[in-house]
């Protein structure tokens, strides 16, 4: 079995770029994947990871160019919830990646991701709402 020591980040939007930059500056072995090359402009100049341009749903691309078999941790944050869900299922159930983090805009997606081992979902909508209430509560004090 291949040694798992890489971090794969799929979808380099604002969130993906921040995570990639920080992981890279900590010395981690980072691979970033986006379907547009222009997305990589968001990355810092000091980013030292490996950049791949292509569709994330292409299994052969994941296997050959992203070395998915040696990935230990994957962060999925493309703009499309359905793509994110499929990739999360794929990474956890087929490629058996030990740590899968996935972002969903739609909190309803939790019914399909709950119970899948090794997957942790992040919902920006919930986080924002929670943050709002905590700030509001602080203001009331």
């Amino acid at each position, binding site marked *: 079995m291949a040694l798992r020591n890489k971090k794969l980040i799929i979808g380099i939007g604002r969130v993906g770029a921040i995570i990639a930059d920080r992981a890279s500056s900590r010395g981690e072995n980072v691979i970033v994947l986006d379907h547009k090359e222009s997305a990589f402009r968001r990355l810092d100049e000091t980013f030292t990871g490996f950049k791949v341009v292509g569709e994330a749903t292409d*299994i052969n691309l994941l296997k050959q160019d992203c070395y998915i078999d040696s990935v230990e941790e994957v962060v999925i944050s493309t703009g499309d919830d*359905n*793509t994110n869900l499929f990739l999360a299922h794929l990474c956890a159930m*087929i490629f058996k990646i030990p740590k899968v983090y996935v972002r969903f805009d739609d909190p*309803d997606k939790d*019914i*399909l991701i709950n119970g899948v081992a090794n997957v942790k979902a992040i919902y920006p909508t919930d986080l924002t709402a929670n943050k709002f209430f905590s700030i509001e509560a602080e203001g009331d004090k």
Partner: protein
Amino acid sequence: MIVVIANGNLEAAYVIDSFKEDRHNKIIVINSDRTIADYLRNHKHVDVYVGSPWRSYALEEAGVYDADLFVSLSDNDTDNYVSCILAKKVFNVRKCICLVKNPDNVEIYKQLGIDSVISSTYLLAQNIKTESLEGRLIRSMNLDSNKIVMVEATLLSRYRICNKPIMEIGFPSYANIAYIMRGEEFIIPKGNVILKPRDTLVIACSKRDEKELTKYLTQRASAKDLQKNIASQIEKSLSKIKEKDPQEEGNKPLEKEAPAEEMKKEATKPSKNKKKPAK
């Protein structure tokens, strides 16, 4: 049967037609595009629920619970995947059929829990391949996403297995003859059926054994075998003649002997005259 047809344009229209023929079917149509929904409503006279089939509230409002069949026909592979998984896992649909563009997705989607995955690109490529092979002696058709192949082989007289009963040819155990076409006639392959030139065998085997099978089928008969074949056929036909009229034999022995000698001469020549004595 409750059938749910999610998304899709013309495909949806055709599928609706095919299920409408049976009056017992209850058809639920969901489409995320309003213009397509209007088209389907006006032309196919069915109720169409406008909504995205990958959202649980859309499926809930459309009443998809416990449906027998869920068909997802959208252009986007992942949309189809999520719709099917949602219907299967949350709405307890009995069987899901998912349409995909990328043939690589077929196996993956099945592993992830979708019952049936159809790749339009794959089917198109297969059809093109089959059409282009028209007229070849051995052609094959892939079934069940590349695992099983149906091989159609037309036999030539120079093949080793020709003119022998099936039980004697040592047919490989990894393949199975489904049926034999002899002209307009269909023959069920049994051990005593003798394979003849121009017979078309329809054989099922797994994809990895296809090459091996082709090799086996096209083995040439040795020159000795060919001669033996011809000789044995002549003998058979002679014995038939003898059986037919045993009384005449005694009366006209000379006449009978002459053709027999001719035939034996022919036997030394290779396959050209082979069919004559058989008939």
